[in-house]
C-alpha cells in the first residue's frame, strides 16, 4: 500500500512509516521483486522499489489496492497520500 500510494520507497522508510522492524519489510520486498511484482534500482546507496510496470496483473492489483485504500482510516490514508512530491530547492527554509 505504501508503494501504491507513494509510487516508490525504500525498506527503512516503509518500516518507519508502519512502525515495524526493518527485516520483515526487507524480506517482503525481496519476495515481491523475485515474483516480478516490484522492481528496484539504486539511488546513491539506497535501493528504491516501485511496482513493475511490466507485471501482467498490475492493473488488477492496483484496482484492488485502490479499493483497499478506500477502507483505510481517513488519517492513515491522508498520511500515505498527502506527501509533498514537487521539488524544493536545497537550503530553502521550510
Amino acid at each position, binding site marked *: 500500500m505504501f508503494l501504491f500510494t507513494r509510487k516508490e520507497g525504500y525498506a527503512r522508510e516503509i518500516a518507519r512509516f508502519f512502525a515495524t522492524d526493518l527485516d520483515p519489510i526487507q524480506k517482503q520486498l525481496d519476495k515481491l521483486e*523475485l515474483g*516480478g511484482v516490484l522492481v528496484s534500482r539504486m539511488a546513491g546507496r539506497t535501493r528504491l522499489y516501485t511496482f513493475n*510496470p511490466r507485471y*501482467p496483473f*498490475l492493473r488488477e492489483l492496483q484496482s484492488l489496492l485502490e479499493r483497499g485504500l478506500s477502507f483505510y482510516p481517513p488519517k492513515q490514508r491522508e498520511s500515505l497520500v498527502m506527501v509533498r512530491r514537487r521539488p524544493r530547492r536545497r537550503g530553502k527554509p521550510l
Partner: protein
Amino acid sequence: MKPVRRMSQAELAAFVQSHLKARGITAILSGGACVSIHSEGRYTSVDIDLVNAYSVNRGAIEAAMQEIGFTEQARHFVHPDTPYIVEFPPGPLSVGAEPVRQIQELAFSTGSLELLSPTDCVKDRLAAYYHWDDQQCLAQAVLVAQAKDADIKEIARWSRAEGMMGKFRLIRARLTPAGQ
C-alpha cells in the same frame, strides 16, 4: 552430445530447456538471448533468461540445474565450462499485460528450443523502452524487427493496448526494414 564448453548460447539454452522439460518444468527463452537469436548475432548477451512460465518451485529448478552441472549464485545459475549465465525470471509468460499466445520452436543438436517469436521479442524489448525509456532495449527491438518479419500491425495493436501509441508512433519507422 556436444560438451557444454563448445555450445553456443542458443545450443546451451536448448540443452538446459530440454533437460528441464524432461523434469516437467516449462521455461521459455526470453530477453537478450532471444534478441541475439532473432537478430542473427547482431546483438550479443551472456544472459539466458528462461521464464518460469508456470511458477514451478525454485527448489525443483535448482535440483534439475544441478544435475547438468549448474550451481546457483545470487539468483542466477553458472556452469564452470561456459560464460553464459542462466536466470529464471518469474512467470507468467507475458509481454506487458498480455499473455504470450504463440511460442516459436527451433531445433538444435542439443535439444529443441522454445522462445518468443520475433514479434513478441520486439514487444518484450519495447516494453522496457515504453516504461523505462531504455534506449538499449529500443535498439534491440529495432535489430529484431529489421532482421525478421515482425508483425508491425500486431505491435501497433499491442502498443495501443499498453497505452503507448504515442511512443509507438515516434519509433514506428525504425521498426521497418527500409525505414518506411
